């Protein structure tokens, strides 16, 4: 899914976010404007350079005059829009979403190779999650270590689909996809074959770098050793879309 390239004559709109008057190009989304203006918006599925997914719902914001919340990553700015990004209601929902992620699978931070470098972990801290109110589901998920360089741990996957999108949109291999529904939903390589047997995977490792948690990691890493680098993404994305 290529992103629309900005048109040469884009109009500028003015809007109000958290009581600040801001201007933005009319083809921008709320999350882009917030990030440009250093207004923190939590998100786990959005990544600059990939297409919009809108799956994690952490970037929900309030728009004056609208009863329902909208995802800042998939909402375009509009003239005169009045947005709140950090109300008590939003904080409550965000805490609950993060707690649900922790309760669904098995994110044991202390023994995770991504400990200390995990977006879910640091988001929990920022959102004020110091414990999970809900009972943990305690259902084990499989681990695929068949690839010689990388490993997939479904226990730590939050289904953000960054791996699916980067593989399709940037690498162009489309090795990753999603199968199943609800708590059975999981990311798969090829047609749910072991990753090591994949005929489409180029072993480029982009999926590993964009994964926000310890679900996709390098083989041979120990607790806390997996540090990810996403600097390549905006550069490659610009070149891709310029083609």
């Amino acid at each position, binding site marked *: 899914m290529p992103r629309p390239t900005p048109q040469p004559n884009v109009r500028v709109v003015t809007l109000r976010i958290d009581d600040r008057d801001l201007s933005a190009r009319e083809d921008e989304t709320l999350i882009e404007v917030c990030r440009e203006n250093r207004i923190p918006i939590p998100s786990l599925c959005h990544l600059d350079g990939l297409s919009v997914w809108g799956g994690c719902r952490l970037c929900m914001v309030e728009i004056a005059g609208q009863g329902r919340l909208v995802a800042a990553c998939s909402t375009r700015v509009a003239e005169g829009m009045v947005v709140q990004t950090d109300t008590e209601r939003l904080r409550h929902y965000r805490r609950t979403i993060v707690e649900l992620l922790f309760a669904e699978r098995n994110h044991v931070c202390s023994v995770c190779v991504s*400990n200390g470098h995990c977006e879910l972990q640091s988001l929990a801290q920022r959102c004020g999650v110091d414990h999970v109110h809900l009972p943990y589901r305690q259902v084990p998920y499989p681990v695929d270590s068949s690839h010689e360089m990388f490993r997939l741990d479904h226990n730590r996957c939050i289904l953000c689909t960054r791996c699916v999108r980067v593989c399709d949109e940037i690498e162009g291999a489309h090795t990753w996809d999603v199968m199943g529904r609800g708590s059975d939903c999981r990311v798969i390589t090829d047609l749910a074959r072991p990753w090591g047997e994949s005929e489409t995977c180029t072993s480029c490792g982009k999926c590993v770098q964009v994964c926000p948690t310890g679900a996709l990691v390098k083989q041979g890493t120990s607790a806390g050793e997996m540090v990810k680098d996403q600097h390549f993404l905006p550069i490659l994305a610009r070149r891709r879309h310029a083609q």
Partner: protein
Amino acid sequence: MSTEPKITVATAWLDGCSGCHMSFLDLDERLIELVAQVEIVYSPLVDAKELPEQVDVGILEGSISSEDDLEKARLFRERCKLLISLGDCAVTGNVPAMRNHFKLADVFDRAYRENVTLQPQIPTRNVPALLTPVKPVHGEVKVDVFVPGCPPSADAIWAVLSELIAGRVPDPNAVTRFGA
């Protein structure tokens, strides 16, 4: 000498590795400052064998994995005005809860038969029965303050305790996180 009564503190470790208590000891010279305001009335770190009837602050390390853990957690809740979950095992279940993915019989076999070369046997006398599933402390009793971390650093413990001593509500998320 101050005549003001000291704040009484009790600690216990349930299913944990004692790392959180070690981290508490890492307060080092701050322990001296602490004991000027606080009296530790029951803990693996002191001699007292019985939890007093009334304690101001109770600190629990470790998850609830056995009948003994459950009994201790309930007793702490009953007798402590304020109960703190210290560390990831108490707060999330952490490593002890990883056995929840296996049948208890398989866990026993792994620990006491498969990996044992001399007289493999499952202990039954003088040991508390294990519970399934392993739960965080707040899965069984109400907890007032959560201090995640594996273990929480001495600085984090200090920040939380000094806020409590000053009569304020601590914000553990400012100083620690899951897995810290």
